[in-house]
């Protein structure tokens, strides 16, 4: 029995040692945190933000940076518009997804693809802070004096192939997502830093039109 407890203790210690992000502590009162997050998100109808995306190629010790605009409108409309150094547009509206690069526009019905649905949902969940209800991921919540950190570990094979984990960083003051870090299985990771975020500004429906 003692051996059992020792093994259990060691397992928990290892988990805490390796899983806890540096500079963060587990959120003490998880249900209170979830309630505050839900309340804060209920008041947000739209989000408009600039973003800087940095792909970190870890083995190559190199970075690829791009910039753009992010728009979100409840319940499920997202527009991610890359403007520099290339133009690329991704619009999600309900079950439809549109991708437009410099040469072509492609429309995808995400209802026909479970993976696309999952990707669609995780982007919306990350921005809305509704990740606790997403069954594709196991979620752990951490905090420090300035930020909350939701660490998402894939729970399905499809998501595991795409991500090792996704970290969502939120301002403690207003629950604004200010950073997303998507880590691939190989160790490369992509940071998306959100700046100049505005809530509840009127967003034209045309921004989310799939055409």
């Amino acid at each position, binding site marked *: 029995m003692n051996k059992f407890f020792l093994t259990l203790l060691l397992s928990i210690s290892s988990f805490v040692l390796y899983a806890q992000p540096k500079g963060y502590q587990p959120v003490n009162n998880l249900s209170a945190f979830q309630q505050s997050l839900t309340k804060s998100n209920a008041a947000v109808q739209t989000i408009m933000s600039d973003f800087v995306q940095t792909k970190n190629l870890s*083995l*190559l010790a190199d970075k690829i940076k791009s910039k753009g605009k992010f728009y979100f409108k409840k319940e499920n409309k997202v527009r991610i518009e890359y403007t520099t150094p290339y133009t690329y547009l991704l619009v999600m509206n309900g079950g439809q997804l549109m991708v437009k690069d410099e040469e072509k526009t492609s429309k995808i019905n995400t209802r026909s693809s479970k993976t696309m649905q999952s990707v669609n949902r995780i982007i919306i969940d990350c921005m809305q802070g509704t990740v606790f209800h997403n069954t594709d991921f196991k979620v752990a919540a951490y905090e420090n004096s300035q930020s909350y950190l939701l660490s998402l570990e894939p729970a399905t094979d499809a998501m595991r192939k795409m991500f090792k984990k996704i970290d969502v960083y939120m301002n403690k003051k207003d629950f604004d997502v200010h950073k997303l870090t998507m880590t691939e299985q190989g160790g490369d990771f992509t940071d998306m830093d959100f700046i100049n975020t505005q809530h509840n500004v009127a967003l034209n429906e045309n921004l989310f039109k799939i055409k």
Partner: protein
Amino acid sequence: MRTYLKLSSLLLLLFAACASPYKHLHFHEDKSQTALQYKPVYEKQVYRCVVDGKILFKKFHLSGILFFKTMEDKSTRVIFQNEMGFTYFDFKWNGQDSFKVIQIIDQMNKPALVKTLEKDLSIFLLKDLNKPTEKIAVNDGDTFYRFTLSKGYVYYIAHSGKLETIDNTGKGGKVTTITLTGKDTPKGLPDSALFTHHKAHFTIQIKKIQSHVDE
């Protein structure tokens, strides 16, 4: 008789189209010059990359970023990722041009496709060329450098001392043509390149992206 003649003409045309496009050239050894003068030397370069093609009646289209880097150990890495940072493939050639797949998504992990991409990128970067097989021909101001591959040939075609076209040919004629634009110095990477696969019916278009890191 008229039908027979038509058919013969068609077959002749078809045969002519399939035959080696450079059969009429006289290739000879010339140790004083080599296509390897055009082998690119670079630290890193990022390209916008668009792939368009057709499998049976279904068209496909893929876009992303193609990243070339020479590592300190002289190995080369070529990484293709989508605009959102998700990696499609990560290829490596060591200092001796031996190829290895570091990472590839399941959807692209097909032997024929990997082989095609490896060959495309190898001949684009003038890697793993069998130097002793190099032969040269000159025609109309163009210099043709030919290397023998395990199957077919690869031709590097320079006009006025500038490498402009790379042709990979097989038994049935051209397999792949790479058209280079803006390769302004012999050792530089081109500003853009168009890979046309004549048999596999797909194209890869790459265009240099200048600023991609911290400004």
